[in-house]
């Protein structure tokens, strides 16, 4: 069973997620892009777990998905608060932490 196309899919998904997180200015799209990058990592974990028939990779995917859910809950609370404050979804307007 050849795994190279799964690695290709993972690289493509990660790249699209990175571009979405860096270039797009909507904070919601930014969030989905981060989830896409996490999913790309998951795909690679599952592919290589299959490569070596080793289930430890799958356990790591379990942890990553849990952390992603936690991150989504906290992140959404933060962006809802920011939206309340600024009334915009433009990510460039959120610059409170700028020195």
């Amino acid at each position, binding site marked *: *069973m050849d*795994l190279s*196309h*799964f*690695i290709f*899919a993972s*690289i*493509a*998904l990660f*790249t*699209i997620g*990175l*571009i*979405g997180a*860096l*270039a*797009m*200015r*909507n904070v*919601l*799209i930014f969030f*989905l*892009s981060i*989830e*896409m990058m996490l*999913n790309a990592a*998951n*795909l690679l974990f*599952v*592919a290589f*777990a*299959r*490569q*070596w*028939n080793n*289930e*430890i990779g*799958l*356990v790591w*995917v*379990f*942890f990553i*998905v*849990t*952390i*992603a*859910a*936690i991150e*989504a*809950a*906290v992140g*959404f*609370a933060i962006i*809802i*608060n920011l*939206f309340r404050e600024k*009334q*915009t*979804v433009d990510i*460039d307007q959120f610059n409170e932490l700028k020195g």
Partner: protein
Amino acid sequence: MANLPQVLEWTFIFLLILSAIGVITASKPVYSSLSFLVTLISLAFLFLRLSASFISTMQILIYAGAILVIFMFVIVLFQDAHRQISILPPKSSSLFILFAMCGFVLIIALFAIKLIGLKQADPMVPEVYGSVQSLGRLLYTDFVLPFEFLVIPLLVAVVGTLYVAKKEK
């Protein structure tokens, strides 16, 4: 001669990449979240092809069932923002973005080229591989400490979310 499972795999990979591009280029957040749903379903299929049935189910349950639903709620709260997304083009031109994308893929390909000699995965897979039983056994034996420590971020998330979402007096 490509057989049917391989054609299906390529179809779902194509669908995955297409819907991922759709997520970042859609005109409205609702469309991009629906596009993300397609991404998740094709990923779940790919996980199934890699004989990780439990992970595939969890992907659908947690991502599509929980995270995407929260996302939909957030979109509902962001009603006013719906109009803004069309007036938020990326700051750099799409040509630069394309260049950056190609450069990044090239960098990864430089690392990935070492994988060429990788031997083919064993087509035979143990009966219990990726099932709830074997993953659960691993979680409660070798990984019991990390598994229990997951409680801490979950607790922090609950308390932190309540604190952040609280209205200022």
